[in-house]
């Protein structure tokens, strides 16, 4: 541990030194990109190819490097995988707003599961406190902080990435760093994103978040089960978003937000499976989608009992 600290200090002082020279290229290289220990890792970071273009061997190498970096940056042992999408699976989500009580357990479970920077306050889920009688989002309260929820005269509307079938964010990206996977999850290659944030501008659901600073997590709080396209530690200066807990759902688990929900308001499942609960909801309940008129075909529905 001590040795690691020393190395961390060395790394820091080297950064300061290079920064002091003011060679901007070198700074760009050292700041953020040079998170690894060895020059080889740093160069690997710099010249890494697009996820969809890498060979299985290259991906294996990258995953190992990500694990090494997690060790050196966070002091955490993680396992980074790239579990592929399963055949005949298309994920969808339905949320019962009659059951949602605004506890925000989903929000906090998501932060833990997905290794969000604890200081950066990034959250994939926003629970909007809405006054009864309207669906006007501008009347929502994003930062409600009561002793007790639910409040009288309010209902609660959690919003997260809708994994649109025709996602405007994907169209916006100038370098194709974000795309829809075959199972419907819109993912980001954090190692390819250039941080222009045009996707954030394009998203109608405010589902995309930027790493304005390097995300920091105490080592004991790092979730070690990670996915390349999901909850692995993110670098600074790139965009991230909800990915339906790809590290869990591709293994047949529920997303963390659904697991955490104490009221059973959340129903996640395979839209292609006629016997799935989500299909039952879509076929038997009155459902609606947020901003459906924008034509992005979201795969996230709301319903009431």
């Amino acid at each position: 541990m001590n040795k690691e600290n020393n190395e961390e200090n060395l790394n820091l002082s080297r950064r300061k030194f290079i920064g002091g020279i003011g060679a901007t290229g070198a700074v760009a290289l050292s700041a953020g990109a040079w998170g690894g220990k060895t020059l080889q890792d740093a160069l690997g970071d710099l010249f890494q190819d697009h996820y969809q273009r890498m060979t299985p061997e290259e991906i294996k190498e990258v995953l190992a490097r990500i694990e090494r970096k997690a060790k050196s940056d966070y002091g955490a042992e993680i396992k980074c995988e790239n579990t592929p999408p399963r055949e005949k699976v298309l994920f969808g989500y339905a949320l019962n707003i009659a059951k949602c009580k605004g506890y925000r357990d989903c929000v906090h479970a998501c932060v833990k599961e997905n290794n969000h920077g604890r200081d950066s306050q990034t959250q994939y889920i926003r629970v909007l406190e809405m006054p009864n009688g309207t669906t006007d989002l501008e009347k929502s309260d994003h930062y409600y902080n009561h002793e007790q929820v639910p409040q009288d005269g309010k209902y609660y509307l959690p919003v997260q990435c809708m994994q649109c079938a025709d996602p405007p964010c994907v169209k916006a990206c100038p370098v194709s760093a974000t795309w829809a996977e075959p199972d419907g999850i819109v993912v980001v290659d954090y190692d390819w994103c250039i941080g222009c944030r045009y996707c954030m501008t394009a998203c109608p659901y405010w589902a995309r978040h930027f790493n304005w600073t390097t995300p920091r997590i105490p080592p004991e709080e790092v979730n070690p089960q990670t996915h390349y396209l999901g909850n692995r530690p993110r670098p600074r200066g790139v965009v991230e978003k909800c990915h339906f807990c790809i590290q869990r759902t591709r293994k047949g688990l529920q997303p963390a937000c659904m697991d955490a929900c104490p009221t059973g308001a959340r129903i996640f499942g395979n839209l292609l499976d006629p016997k799935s609960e989500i299909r039952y909801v879509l076929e038997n309940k009155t459902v609606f989608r947020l901003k459906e008129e924008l034509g992005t075909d979201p795969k996230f529905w709301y319903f009431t009992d």
Partner: protein
Amino acid sequence: MPIIYFVRDSIREMFRGGMVYWLWLISLVGITAWGLGYYVEQLENGLVVTGMSDQVSWGFYLANFAFFVGVAASSVLLIIPAYIFHRVEIKRVVLIAEGMAAAAVIVAMLFVVVDLGRPDRMWHAIPFIGRFNFPISILAWDMLVLGGYLFLNVAIPFYVHYCHYCNREPVFNFYFPVVIIAIFWAISIHTVTAFMFSANSARPFWHTALLGPRFIASAFVSGPALIILTMQFIRRFTDYPVSQEVIKTTALIMTVALQISLFFVGVELFTDFYNESTHAASIRYLFFGLEGLDSLRPWIWTALILNVVGLIILMIHPLREKMLTLNIACISTTIGIWIEKGMGLVVPGFIPTPLGEIHEYTPTIVEYGISIGIFALGILLFTLMAKASIAIELGKVRYQRVRGANEQHTD
């Protein structure tokens, strides 16, 4: 090889000048370096040093980007009257205008570069080596048209100056078609930049077909205004002939453009406010504030007042003909359009957020510092290009003369 002499002599001319010229260059270099210092700070700490947030994810940098693309486009569009109406005296300023266009494109591109979270990954946008999402991404289109435009505005003046340097006339049939391409290209860069914003159906404030025409109209105000101011500088500090006719024609273009531009603003205000929908929230925030938050209000009202003052001056003929009042109009409308198209256009698109949150944005000292540094660099580049251009056009730097001098020297 005369081309080597051409480049060498041009560069030599760029750094030849009196005390005032050198002071000018040194102060511009100084300001650029000062801005670079802030950029180093931003690289070290990340974009957290800016006032931007997940809510307002583009700010002062992209605001300046939109403005300078307009300057770049409109300075070349001034070529149209020169050729269509055979206004010889305007042809003389064409080369200066193209120099200004080139500098403005570089400035615009730099504003995108400093806005990137990962400038070290810029190579990802290089086709084939990286992954360039063309033709789907409008930002990819923008990179392409800006790059092409920069090339055109370097290539044409390079060729014309080179011919003049070699004491021959440029072949009209060779370069004129390229000039025509550049004119269409100029409209395209600004249209594509407008599309970059109006393409977002999630942002009702920008999602209007009028945005493209508005961009073009306002560009025709700020571009000519800057040309008029620059021409007076050139007239004062060099022997380059700038006739009053050029300034008069340019001022007329500017007047018409400003009328159209303000008409468009009025059209937007009517459409948004007559039957006010939730889509008008951004424009209400911009002009009047929402829920007591109104940090953009002073900006937009300043812009509106400056533009109206400019319009009044420009529409009263004696005032437009008088240099003092014309200059006041040029400065006030340049600032007016800069605000209207920058802070007044980019930022309110993000307020309220698509989820109805009102989160304000104020640029930080780092953003101002970096931006001022980029302005200075742009002025520096333009100064150097104009210096060489004027010397070649006045016949002070010529191949024969230089070669003669060289031969004498070696003898």
